[in-house]
């Protein structure tokens, strides 16, 4: 009986794959690795690793406490490594820019009702509901993958993260 071992990556242990080009440009595949990107990011930078028109997936290096964010549409976050708590507040008044896509920074601490919190470990995915403020906190360096839309906080640095 084979004892199968499932291999997940982490900041401490990941092995990047590769492209073997036959007749193409490697840039067309925008090949990167979320753990490598997180290893070179500053805390809570939102670095695009996948882009499809306006839609984006962002890698976030979670370290300590983030600022507060809000968004005009749903987002989701997947914990790829570590342990991250997400706190939610329902603002007393509209604090997001209506019609603006992507995560938006909130100045200071939003005033409103606590909605709850979730503690995410590797493989856990949470909804970041629209019009609700949220912030992350991580006691050890962790890696998040956020499903959202290209916005004012998205950083695109394809040349430095992708195989070419």
């Amino acid at each position, binding site marked *: 009986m084979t*004892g*199968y071992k*499932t*291999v*997940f*990556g982490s900041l401490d242990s*990941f*092995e*990047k*794959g*590769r*492209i*073997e*080009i*036959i*007749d*193409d440009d*490697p*840039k*067309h*595949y*925008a*090949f990167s*690795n*979320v*753990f*490598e990107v997180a290893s070179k990011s500053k805390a809570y930078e939102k670095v695009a690793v*996948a*882009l*499809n*028109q306006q*839609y984006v997936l962002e890698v976030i290096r979670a370290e300590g406490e983030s600022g507060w964010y809000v968004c005009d*549409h*749903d*987002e*989701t976050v997947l914990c*790829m490594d570590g342990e991250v708590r997400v706190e*939610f507040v329902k603002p007393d008044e509209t604090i997001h820019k209506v019609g603006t896509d992507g995560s938006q920074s909130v100045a200071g601490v939003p005033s409103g*009702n*606590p*909605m*709850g*919190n*979730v*503690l*995410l*470990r*590797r*493989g*856990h*995915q*949470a*909804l970041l509901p629209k019009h609700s403020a949220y912030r992350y906190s991580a006691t050890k360096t962790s890696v998040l*993958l956020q*499903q959202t*839309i290209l916005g004012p906080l998205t950083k*695109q640095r*394809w*040349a430095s993260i*992708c195989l070419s």
Partner: protein
Amino acid sequence: MSTTETTVKSGPANEHGYKSFELGGFQFRRDEFFVHVTWPTGTHLISVDVFLRALQRDCAWNFFYGTVNFDDVIGTINHYGNVDLFAGRFNEAYRTAELDHLENFPSEEIGGTFRAMLDDWTNAGFDPFASPAETDAPWGVKNGDNTKAVTRQRVAANRMVGVKGDERIRSDESGYPINRMFADVPQDEPEVHVEPGYESEIAAFNLFAYLSRSDVTWNPSVVSVVKESLYCPTTEEYILPIVHGNDRVEWFIQLSDFISWDVQDRDSGSPRAKVIMKAGDVAAMPADIRHQGYSPKRSMLLVWENNSADLPALIASGKAPTYPVNF
């Protein structure tokens, strides 16, 4: 019999016990080992396991995005409301010899015929969605059916799996035991603390545990939605039973283990690259390629799609590029 099923043209069972089917100028019949396809300019044989695995996915995905190549001759192109069925359309030799053939059908007509064919030609014990290591063989004369397996409902969350009123998480009790190759995947669920009144907003689930309990392979299913951005994770083992031709850019995020992708030119089939993905890797599949994946151990793959109905026309007209970013 539903309205859709009334459009199915089928013949009586042959000496092997299987019905034959017609779609326009295409005819399909099966024997103990092969599916025989004929069209006005040619004939073709496909091993029945290859055919049924491809047919299962074409049915379950409602023809998916773009082209579903059953092999290097037969396949479908989705136009979202109508579907092309082709022979040799993406095979240069067939095109050069002018032996290729293509007919267009309303989605309901070809879908009804495909579903009837899949149900009639799938014997008891054979599950076209399962890993070949986890199912019986499809060979032989007609022997019962496996309607329950071939009519599985595809997961399609509205916001996210686990949100109140949305798709439910999987468990032993709901009929989803942990797969043999994912026995070591942690099953802990996130801690979720919800203040009263926000039960529909605050939600989280263990995606990796959810995937470890998938009973199918190579079947992207929607677990979260941000407008037209769809997370479609899937568990992969052995070989993708179709060769998928894109009509838009799609993205792969390798969540666990390893997959090797053969990438070819979508129209000619000429090899363009091999993309070898390990846990944490992210890669785009351009809009003008076809691809087939090989997964030696059951792995978790996040397929990320832009579901916008405008994309195929934008890309086909050159108004949007076939690859995702310039750098």
